[in-house]
Structures are given as C-alpha cells and as structure tokens.
C-alpha cells in the first residue's frame, strides 16, 4: 500500500455536486425569505399608505379637533371631524362582545377539555368550529332580523317599568339620565344586539384555542391535584386553568382584535349613526362600519371626505395595537409558568 500522503488529495470526488447543491440551497433560502418578508412588507405598506393619506387629512383638520370633538359628520354640508363617536361605538360593541365571548368561550373550553366525555367532545367541537366558519354578513342579518326583535320583546317590560318610574321622579338629574339612556322601546338598530352576536361569533375562537392550551397541560399536574383529594372542578379551575393561562390569554387577545376589527355585523345591525355614547341600547357607528360605508359610496378619490377613512383606519390600527399591548402585559402579569 502506498503512503496516502504521497498522493495529492482527490477532493474532486467529494465536491462534484457541491456547486449545484449550494445554488439549490440558496434558491430555497431566498424563497423562504421572500415568503417571510411578504407579510412584513404588507404591514409596512399598509402603515405607509395610512400615514401618508392621513397626513393630507390632518393638514385640513387639526389633530386636536379630530381627537376631542364629539361630533362626526364628514359627509354633511357642515362637516365635523371628531373621531370619538366612532371610537365609543367600537369600544362599546367590543365590550359587549367580550362580555359574552370570554366567559362563554372559557367555560366551553373548560368543559370540553376537562369534563366532556370523548363522544360528546367529538360532536361539540366540530359544531363550535363550524360556528367560526359562518360568514359575518350572515351573523349581521341574524342580529338584525332575529336577535334584535327578540331583545325588543324582552326589553319592552323593562322599558315600560323604568319609564313609569321616570315619570314620577322630579325633573333633572336621575330623571333626565333615565329618560335619555333607558328608552321606552329598544330601537331596531342597537349596539347590544350587534355586540351579543359578535360575542357568539368570537366564542368558538376563544374556546378552541383555550381548549388546546388546557389539553396540553401535562397529565401529571392533573393527577397531582386529584391525588390530594381535589374534585374535577377544583383541578380544572385551580390547576389546569392557571397552567394554561398563557395560551388562554392569547385567545382573549385574538378575540379582542377580532371584535375591534369586525365590520359586517356592526354595519348591518348597529345602525350607521355616529353618536358619542357608551350606552349599548343606542345605535352607533364603529370605525370599521364608517370605513365600509365610505368605501362603498361614490365619494371622489383624493377628496377630504375620502381621506377621512384613512385617518379612521389609522385610529383603528392604533386602538387594536393598544389593546394588544394591554393584553400582552396583563397576560404576562397573570401568567404562571410551568
């Protein structure tokens, strides 16, 4: 055998395919990078568009008026540009929706993950997820044509009762407040109905993500709890729920974003009147409903009226961002790691 060192090493054997392989690898890497960048790029493009169009708007309308005026009538002869009515509409419908979706979604998740027998879960889970697949415009008409009449019927006795009571009160203070905020009849458009239906729409989103989070809590934790003599509910509530808190809170954050951004239900069922109110019995317009109203109308591009939707859109993005940040910090505060 000859000394291997005496021969020139034959690297060629090992490097024949090297060039072509490195090209393939780079192409793949580039494609992956582009895919990742496309979403970042879209986000940036949207922000640039919103801000640049809003700049034109804020040249005409002082930003202070925009943020503090309680009247929004950009399409009228005597236009006023106060965003507060749209913000109040958005926040009120969101709050109503969340007050339905968070408890219902959480309870459904606890039931499905900790209590439901296999067979029951196999039925309920797909049905719940089907609920998430219904187009929102259908929910809108469900709110307007089914839930609102139902609410009107349920509300009538209460309205009559409160009104009878109001009439006996001396004028001023409480009486005025009741007279204005607790009407005799519930209007055909109101934020309560839109918000409730929006809550029903968001429930499966929250229950599905929360259930996954709770089911991924290790069995040892559950058994540890049972072994101390805990009941099924104590185990679910005191051990599994806190252990899954990070996943559950992210479902809440997603639910909030969904509610803030929801358009069709509120556009159809809440009425399109921008009124500054936090009373869910009133009709109101949300930011999204206003945007869709203007986009569908025949307002010329580039006009001030047209630019209002970009300013409104910017506020919507900021509201969502702020709620997300609050949710993030709340979940960090309450999170219990395992």
């Amino acid at each position, binding site marked *: 055998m000859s000394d291997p060192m005496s021969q020139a090493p034959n690297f060629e054997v090992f490097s024949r395919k090297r060039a072509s392989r490195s090209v393939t690898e780079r192409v793949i890497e580039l494609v992956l990078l582009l895919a990742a960048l496309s979403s970042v790029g879209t986000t940036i493009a949207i922000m640039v568009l919103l801000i640049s169009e809003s700049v034109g708007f804020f040249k005409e309308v002082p930003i202070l008026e925009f943020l503090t005026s309680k009247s929004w009538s950009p399409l009228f002869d005597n236009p006023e540009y106060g965003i507060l009515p749209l913000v109040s509409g958005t926040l009120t419908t969101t709050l109503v929706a969340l007050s339905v979706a968070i408890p219902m979604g959480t309870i459904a998740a606890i039931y499905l993950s900790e209590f439901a*027998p*296999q067979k029951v879960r196999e039925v309920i889970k797909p049905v719940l997820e089907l609920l998430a697949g219904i187009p929102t415009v259908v929910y809108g008409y469900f709110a307007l044509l089914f839930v609102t009449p139902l609410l009107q019927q349920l509300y009538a006795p209460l309205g009559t009762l409160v009104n009878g009571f109001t009439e006996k009160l001396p004028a001023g203070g409480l009486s005025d407040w009741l007279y204005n905020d607790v009407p005799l009849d519930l209007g055909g458009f109101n934020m309560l109905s839109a918000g409730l239906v929006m809550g029903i729409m968001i429930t499966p989103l929250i229950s599905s993500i929360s259930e996954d989070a709770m089911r991924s809590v*290790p069995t*040892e*934790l*559950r*058994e*540890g*709890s*049972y*072994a*101390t*003599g*805990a*009941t099924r509910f*104590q185990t679910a509530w*005191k*051990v599994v729920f*806190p*252990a899954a808190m990070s996943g559950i809170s992210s479902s809440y954050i997603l639910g909030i974003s969904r509610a803030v951004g929801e358009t069709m239900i509120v556009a159809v069922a809440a009425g399109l009147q921008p009124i500054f109110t936090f009373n869910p019995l009133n009709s109101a317009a949300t930011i999204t409903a206003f945007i869709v109203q203007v986009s569908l109308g025949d307002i010329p591009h580039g006009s001030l009226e047209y630019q209002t939707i970009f300013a409104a859109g910017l506020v919507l993005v900021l509201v969502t961002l702020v709620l997300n940040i609050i949710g993030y910090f709340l979940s960090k505060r309450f999170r*219990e*790691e*395992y």
Partner: protein
Amino acid sequence: MVEEVSQLNVTAVKPKAEVIDLDFYYGSTHVLKRVNLVVPDRQITALIGPSGCGKTTLLRCFNRLHDLYPDNHYNGEIVFDSAVNILSPKVDPIEVRMRIGMVFQRPNPFPKSIYENVAYGLRVQGERKTSVIDDKVERALKSAALWDEVKDRLKSPAYALSGGQQQRLCIARALATEPELILFDEPTSALDPIATSNIEELMAELKQQVTILIVTHSMQQAARLADYTAFMYLGEMVEFNRTLALFNSPLNKQTEDYVKGRFG
C-alpha cells in the same frame, strides 16, 4: 404462589392496608391477576419487578386514580385499617385520596408559589383558616426537610426550585393533609444521586409517622430502604417477604433470577 407468601408470618405484622384477591382490567386487558399483599403499618414496603409487571397499576389502585379514566375496572378488595374496602363502589374516591397521599415519578409541582403548592391539599379539602394553613404548611415543609431552604421565599414560584427540591415539595404537599399512607411511584427516577439519597433519608424518617408504599425500578433502592419487598411479574404477586429475606433467600425461582440480575 400463595404458599410462598405464607412463609412470611403475615399475621404477625399490623397491616395498614391489605390487598385481597385483586384483579384489575384496562378495558379487556387483564393487568393484575389475583394479587394479594399486606402493607404493614408505619413501615416501608417496596414493589419491585420488571417494566410492565403491574406494580404501578397496583399502586394507583390504592388511591383509586384509575377511576379518572374510562374502561378501567377492579375486582377484589383493598381493606384499609382492617375496616373499609376502599375499592367498593360505595366509597368516594375523593375521601380515599384525602387519606392516602401520592408522590409521582417526576416532580409535578403546580404553577403556584411554594406556599400555595403545600397549602393546595388543605384548601381543596375545605380548610379556610389562614393560621391553620400557615401552621400545617410549615410543619409539612419541615417534615419534608425543605423548610430551611425555602422559608425566606415561600411566595416565589415552585419552578424556581431544583428537581430534588421540587420532589421534596411534592412530598410536603402530600404530607400537609396528614395522610396515613403515602404512595411513591418511582419518586427518584428523575433525580440525580445526591437528590435521590436525600429523598431516601427523608422517607426513612417519615416512616415514624406514615406508612409508605413505594414502587421502584431499582433493586438497590428497595434493598436500602424497604422493610418489606414484594416482587411482581406479569401481573402476579410472585413473592412477598421481609426485604432481607427476599433478597438473600428468595423462595421462588423467578424472584431469585430477578434479584440476582439474570433478567428484568
């Protein structure tokens, strides 16, 4: 096999619990076959045997943990304190678990503070007085030889502790409700040798106050720790005796092969 068991004068020991002709099925799989065992009061009893022999299944019968899952069923009895068959359908498994504690294979503290972990059993059992809970938490942590290490940080999360400390915390959690019997399911298999010897020392001390039944995969551990040892194989109780007798002069051929390391 009953003959071998009778080599130990069972009537001479005071039983905390007695397994009588226990059969257990996972669905249609017959996992425990007419198992008999005496768990002597305030002694350490070890269950040994190769993987899949049913020793953990037997252990989990004692606190009815099998009841959590569908398709499991028992035949036979586990008589507690010579009085109650805890496998009887009339017995509430939650009451059983309040009196029979358990420590698991891997430390499984809850995502709560050190204090709340130990207080958990007390709270779920309905204790509300803070002074009582404070007192019992302190006593449990002292019994689990953890008090000195954690007394200044009772409010910090349990996950900040090391693996060995977490396991002692789980022992404290089991001790807090003052059970009469504690089940240990391979409690040191996830721990390093130093943490293991700490836990073993702790168990040797604990037998003053509670009866201990431990499943272990380590024959050395059984030999070091246990007063009595039971060898199980393929779901049957092959031999049960004082630990020294079982290891030094096994009566059964299978036991001998296993303790001499010829299989398993």
